[in-house]
């Protein structure tokens, strides 16, 4: 039997806390990124774009892994809460991927010398972006809630392969985008401690924002589904 009741704890208690925590973390992260972290010896101040670009990219990876988990959860349990979390996470993931692409492009013009080039990291990220936009578009094609959830789940499970492909693309082939600085096997992160601390606070802020947005959007999705189901009784 399909259950649509949204968990009350999530909707009533956690969201305001997440919202406040997000604002606090974002404020601190912005202050650290603009005022406390040192500039780069080679790039100067433009390196600070990294504090938006990298957290956005990593949070997008997280979002798409959650889409995968929600997809599996729906197919396994037939609880619409999983599908609601999946679509919410896909929307936020698309948003943050777009943000990472735009921030990256703004960084690339003064450093690389071009706004865009068809190199491996950029191509695979663009493909990931388009694939999840496709996930969202295709949800409009299913005439039934359960059918939509199942079709989306299939895409959500396959598309998560984008995440390791995007991250590892620069290590697999000659690329313009730099190799991973933090998420790499062996060696410790190749950046100044203050830069790393600022980056991690930025990641925390983006993650809290992500959680808050997903909580809001998933609740909305479940409310819509509940209204539709009620209309059938």
């Amino acid at each position, binding site marked *: 039997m399909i259950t649509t009741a949204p968990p009350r704890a999530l909707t009533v208690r956690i969201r305001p806390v997440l919202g406040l925590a997000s604002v606090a973390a974002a404020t601190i992260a912005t202050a650290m990124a603009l005022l406390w972290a*040192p*500039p*780069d*010896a*080679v*790039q*100067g*101040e*433009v*390196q600070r774009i*990294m504090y938006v670009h990298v957290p956005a990219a990593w949070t997008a990876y997280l979002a798409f892994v959650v889409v995968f988990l929600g997809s599996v959860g729906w197919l396994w349990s037939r609880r619409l809460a999983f599908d609601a979390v999946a679509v919410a996470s896909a929307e936020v993931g698309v948003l943050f991927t777009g943000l990472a692409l735009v921030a990256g492009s703004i960084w690339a013009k*003064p*450093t*690389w*010398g*071009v706004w865009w*080039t*068809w*190199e*491996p990291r950029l*191509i*695979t990220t*663009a*493909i990931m972006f*388009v*694939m999840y*936009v*496709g996930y969202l*578009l*295709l*949800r*409009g*094609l*299913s*005439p*039934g*809630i*359960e059918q*939509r959830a199942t079709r989306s789940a299939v895409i959500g499970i396959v598309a998560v392969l984008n995440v390791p492909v995007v991250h590892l693309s620069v290590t697999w*082939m*000659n*690329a*313009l985008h*730099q*190799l*991973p*600085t933090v998420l*790499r096997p062996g060696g410790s992160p*190749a*950046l*100044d401690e*203050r*830069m790393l601390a600022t980056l991690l606070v930025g990641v925390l802020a983006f993650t809290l924002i992500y959680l808050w947005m997903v909580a809001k959007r998933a609740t909305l999705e479940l409310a*819509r*589904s509940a209204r*539709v*189901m009620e*209309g*059938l009784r």
Partner: protein
Amino acid sequence: MSVARPAGYAGGAGERRLLMLTALAVAIGIGYFAFQELGPSAVYYLTPTEAKERQIAPGTTVRLGGQVEPGLTYDEATRDLRFIITDGVTRVFVLGRGAPPALLREGAGAVVEGVFLNDGTFRASQVIAKHDEVYAPPSPGVTPPHRTP
């Protein structure tokens, strides 16, 4: 008919057709880029040694990637950019036009797109500076070479 129609469902047949065409276009787009750019023979750039081994013919557009040797010059008047790109084994003399990207420096990475001339020099139509994955604050008293306006 007791089917639960979800919010955002494209109800009309015309709407559905448009959506399906969009999805098809997206899929074709993905497929095109995947096979074009990530195919087994497709690389973003060749090292100078790889270009030599493959005997890239003069006039064929290709990208080379490597390190910039000491001796980079840019003439403001003629807008001639000259430098040598190397992978440690093979050196290629590059001729470019126009101001180089701010991060193009001796000892750092670069990717150039263009064609080989008959004499083995490379005429670049595009010069891109490559940044490595290391970030460090400037030493005291030293100004970073790249300054944003």
